[in-house]
């Protein structure tokens, strides 16, 4: 019997959880189907089917689902409500399965489990069992897959592959959601371009828990979105420690959480530090040449300040 093909849309929280998710499904003896990377073709298809007002990352997600729909037996579109106690994710993650179902026709079966760890972390195990039931796998297999997937995820956040020391004369802090910072198509290879310009990028994932926590102790109100909270923590960490030479904020068009949290960070940056700060808003019309010009100007400014 051929293996069950699970489509993993390479967008949104894939970029954070892929090592866990892929290990989990592979341990269940499934085959993972995914796009090699985001492409213009994928994004265009997403833009075409998506509600026009949706944010860029959601449009890209829908594009990936479109890409996968003829290639897989199931597509993994979880409803991610919460990944830690008393926090939420952005509303669009809460309604993602329904957005997919309403926007795209001819879908294969969806694995649209609800992941809600607001009250209890152990709910995750229940979700894993639910998935394996849907895939007709044994109880034992699912436990094994769950443990392996969970460990793989833990490893991935402990030793992020991008943590390795890069060389570069200048260090720039990057503030942005993982699904923008790590999607080279959407951010037009920003990190690599920085490298070419001799600049090291520091992202949220390169900070450890302690650093994030000390950053967050400065915030006046608890942030209720997990990933925006991490962004705030990172920002305050950057403000306080004189480790970096400048900050680049990456936001996507239509991002609701960034419209407020990003604004707070930009305003705090003005008050709390004299670090150069640049905000880049990306959408499907953003041109690469324009982005490079702005990056080069920003780096020139860093150099100029140095002299």
């Amino acid at each position, binding site marked *: 019997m051929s293996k069950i093909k699970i489509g993993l849309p390479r967008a949104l929280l894939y970029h954070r959880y892929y090592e866990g998710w892929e290990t989990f499904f592979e341990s269940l003896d499934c085959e993972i189907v995914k796009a090699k990377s985001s492409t213009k073709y994928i994004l265009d298809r997403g833009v075409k089917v998506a509600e026009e007002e949706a944010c860029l990352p959601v449009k890209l997600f829908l594009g990936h689902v479109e890409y996968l729909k003829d290639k897989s037996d199931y597509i993994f579109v979880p409803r991610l409500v919460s990944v830690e106690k008393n926090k939420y994710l952005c509303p669009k993650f*809460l309604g993602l399965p*329904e957005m997919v179902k309403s926007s795209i026709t001819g879908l294969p079966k969806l694995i649209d489990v609800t992941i809600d760890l607001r009250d209890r972390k152990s709910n995750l195990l229940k979700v894993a069992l639910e998935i394996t039931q849907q895939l007709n796998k044994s109880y034992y297999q699912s436990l094994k897959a769950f443990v392996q997937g969970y460990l793989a995820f833990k490893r991935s956040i402990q030793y992020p592959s991008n943590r390795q020391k890069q060389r570069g004369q200048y260090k720039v802090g990057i503030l942005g959601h993982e699904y923008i910072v790590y999607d080279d198509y959407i951010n037009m290879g920003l990190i690599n371009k920085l490298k070419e310009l001799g600049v090291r990028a520091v992202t949220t994932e390169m900070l450890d828990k302690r650093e994030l926590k000390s950053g967050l102790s400065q915030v006046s109100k608890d942030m209720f979105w997990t990933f925006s909270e991490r962004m705030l923590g990172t920002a305050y960490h950057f403000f306080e420690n004189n480790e970096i030479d400048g900050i680049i904020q990456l936001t996507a068009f239509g991002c609701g959480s960034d419209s407020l949290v990003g604004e707070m960070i930009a305003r705090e940056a003005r008050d709390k530090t004299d670090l150069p700060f640049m905000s880049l808003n990306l959408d499907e019309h953003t041109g690469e040449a324009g982005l490079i010009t702005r990056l080069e100007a920003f780096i020139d400014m860093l150099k100029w300040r140095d002299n």
Partner: protein
Amino acid sequence: MKVTFPQMGTMEIAVKTLLEELGLEVIPPPKITQKTLDLGVKHSPEFACLPLKINIGNYIEALENGADTIIMGGGVGPCRFGYYGEVERKILEDLGYDFKMIIVEPIQNDWWGFYKKLKLLLTNISWFNLKQAWQRAWAKGTAVDNLAKTVNQIRAYAQDRKLAQEMYEQALTEIDAAKRIIEIEKLEQSYQTELKQLPQRQNFSPLKVGIVGEIYVVLEPAVNFAIEKKLGERGIVVDRSLTLTQWVKEHLYLGHFKDETKHEEIKEAARPYLQHMVGGHGLETIGETFLYAQDNYDGVIHLSPFTCMPEIIAKSILPRVSQDLDLPVLSITVDEHTGEAGVITRLEAFIDLLKRNHQKGEVI
């Protein structure tokens, strides 16, 4: 201490009473005008949703009028509203205003915090005063909501539709000025009767339209271009799914005072299309649309501010609901660039479509 608060539809009438009864000096923001919007847009983040921009405009105008304390609601997500207060405070501080901002977080999460906030606001107040103030504010809120419901029903039938609207506005002014609960109740009664006794059109069977969507845009006529009035004057019976008092009952009341029956019904109705709350009123939009179809409404109008996160989800699901139930749905997204003429054109086209559907129905 001179307190102010954001404007939202007729909320001012109840909130002003509540605060004044508690012995505070209240400076409500002036009614929302183009200037309010311009001020808000100028100083707010570009991609923030419209209510935040209007809030900022409200605050600036109120602070210029002498207010020094702002009362604002908080929240715990997942809708952006929960973070409004923090951002608004920062924006006003950066503008150099000297003020205090009291952000009232939901009671359910933090009793002690709520109590402390209350103490900050009212140094010395008895439970009796608090209860009395609440009851008076509640009486006003209920009266206003009930009259709005009636006028939305009556307007289309009235021979002089403008007169019905004038009466309603007159009622709002008088209720606003009333002091005692008996007085408020009497006013409501008499206006209810008067509205119902207006000379009506004969042999007239109007179209019925329900309004769903994000609460601020639904409740604030300055933002939704007085859509209820516009529909009513064009001979449409309107029902608005959201009212302030209903919202308070669901969100602020505790324990067995909480009125969840309506909400359960909505959740159940939305289930085939949306199985989880998405913050704000996204789930309600889907559920209420379904219920309007069941109640044989001719169409539904969905209102939301541009970039509203929960309503974008609702908006992407609504076409499917509309198709399944054979119910026309018009989604109107508003922001600072929305022009009134454009909205009127779309409304009229929608009404034409409903009329044609209606006739088709009769022929068969």
